[in-house]
């Protein structure tokens, strides 16, 4: 199966005018203009197959939105080749636009003064959706996203969570093959986030819609996207399954031993000491196979052990470890 999206050495360089400070600088810039080249995206390659759900992750300014804009055809790559559904997206903006859906967490596509239903109906015209299909999709999306109560309310009266659900529904009415989401859960409360995540996972599973999602919230990735692409400074750092990332980092479990009184230095063969607070000692387990019983067996009795805590590493921790170690990992992903 050929990939639905393929990027080969894609780069995007922006020319930014160097502004000089002060009045003199402003005068000077009237006559000579200096530009700095900013590489927002730098030699990125990946291939995404139909039906995948991919999380595109990176810190602020890593080039995530730039990449999304290139894939949706509203930004031209300055290097490499990019193909979406077999086309160069920027050269075929209209055809491309008809087959994709896009949701920007920070930009609304709904009509502010109109009932949600009217915005949806406008999309029926824009995408030329056959009436029966439109009705089916509207019914499905309304039920799935629990929108029946506010379908006839003007957008300006909706809560952010309701609005975001409407935005997502609007992007799906024309059965796009690919759904791009740029930070879809930004600013939502826990319940709304959960509803959005469950729905996206469902639409990916049931309808086979390919999902590309950028986010800062790692739980989004964990619940929706089995595959993760990580970028920083415009460069690709990691492309693969979240589990693989976890495994490749050792995803070491953390062990905390609390004693009634400071037992003095404690050395274990199965775990490495990371912090010693006297009565509380923090370790990481060296190996996946080490069990708590092994550790306690080695420790033996008589230290006045009060409490034991064993923690699985959460995704935030995995990512943090990854970014801290990135120079070593970037070369051998």
């Amino acid at each position: 199966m050929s990939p639905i999206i393929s990027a080969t050495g894609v780069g995007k360089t922006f020319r930014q005018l160097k502004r000089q400070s002060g009045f003199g600088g402003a005068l000077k810039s009237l006559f000579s203009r200096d530009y700095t080249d900013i590489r927002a995206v730098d030699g990125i390659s990946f291939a995404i197959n139909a039906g995948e759900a991919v999380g595109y992750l990176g810190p602020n300014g890593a080039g995530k939105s730039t990449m999304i804009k290139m894939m949706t055809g509203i930004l031209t790559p300055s290097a490499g080749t990019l193909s979406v559904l077999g086309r160069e997206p920027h050269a075929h903006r209209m055809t491309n636009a008809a087959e994709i859906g896009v949701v920007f967490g920070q930009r609304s596509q709904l009509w502010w003064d109109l009932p949600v239903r009217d915005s949806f109906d406008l999309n029926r015209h824009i995408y030329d959706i056959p009436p029966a299909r439109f009705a089916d999709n509207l019914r499905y999306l309304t039920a799935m996203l629990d929108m029946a109560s506010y379908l006839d309310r003007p957008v300006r009266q909706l809560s952010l969570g309701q609005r975001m659900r409407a935005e997502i529904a609007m992007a799906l009415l024309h059965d796009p093959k690919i759904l791009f989401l740029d930070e879809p859960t930004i600013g939502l409360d826990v319940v709304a986030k959960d509803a959005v995540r469950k729905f996206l996972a469902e639409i990916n599973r049931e309808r086979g819609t390919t999902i590309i999602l950028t986010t800062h919230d790692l739980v989004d990735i964990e619940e929706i996207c089995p595959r993760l692409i990580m970028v920083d400074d415009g460069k690709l750092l990691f492309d693969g399954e979240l589990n693989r990332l976890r495994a490749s980092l050792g995803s070491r479990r953390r062990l905390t031993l609390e004693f009634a009184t400071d037992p003095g230095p404690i050395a274990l063969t199965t775990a490495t000491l990371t912090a010693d607070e006297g009565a509380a000692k923090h370790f990481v387990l060296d190996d996946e196979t080490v069990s708590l019983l092994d550790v306690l067996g080695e420790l033996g009795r008589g230290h006045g052990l009060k409490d034991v805590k064993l923690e699985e590493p959460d995704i935030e921790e995995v990512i943090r470890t990854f970014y801290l170690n990135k120079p070593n990992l970037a070369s051998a992903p």
Partner: protein
Amino acid sequence: MKLSAYPAFTATAFTSRLAYRNQVWSGMFGELVATFAFIAVWTAAFVGRGTVDGVTLPDMVTYVIIAGPLLNWNTTRYIREVGDAIRTGDVTTFLLKPLHYPALLFFNQLGNNAFEQLSITLPVAVIVALAVGLLPPASVAHGLLFLAYWVVSWSMMFLIATLTAMLAFWLLTAFALDWFLRGIMAVASGAVVPLWFMPAPLAAILGYLPFAWVSYYPSAVYLGKLDLPAASLHLAIGCIWLATLVGILTWLWSRMRHRLIVQGG
């Protein structure tokens, strides 16, 4: 997107405006006050004189009613909205859809102005006409030509306003652009003072600029100040202006889109 789908935007813009009904009352009040004020000014100017340069007071009152509320298209909101969308990069949300942005604007603004014309300016024109009297068109032919001029007037204003709003992309301020345009329109469209009362050299220049087709020519044709051949000729010149502005708009938009998709917002 099929061309037949664009009128949906006209309907959407029209119904959007229904959400702000109080704007209708404040808009009507403002237009009424302005129109009566202009009529008072001209009445004072005509005191003791039957005609000035071949123009009578009833001529002027009719001119004020037509050039004033009727052909004084409100574009303030439009320029700010489009200018801001362009300046902030929100315009990209439209690029994400399979549609032509300037065409969308055209049908959208058609809905907006249709709403204003039906709910504000036409009622005001009728009220003032009933209160102070309105002359009929100079002839049936002039009346029919006036209807064609009406369409030209709206289209011209749409193009001028859209071009002005697009300058926001390079100048980064829609607010100042709106003031700039309103200043130009007040003089050059003939909405306040008809071109026939202006100094000849100024009138000659303004008579060839597209602004004059917004208020001056339609009103002058209604009153029969242009004979039928001259009125038809100027209608043709107006259409040439429309085509020219469409060309400029298309060129500007493609340059802007190119810069948007190369430079990014």
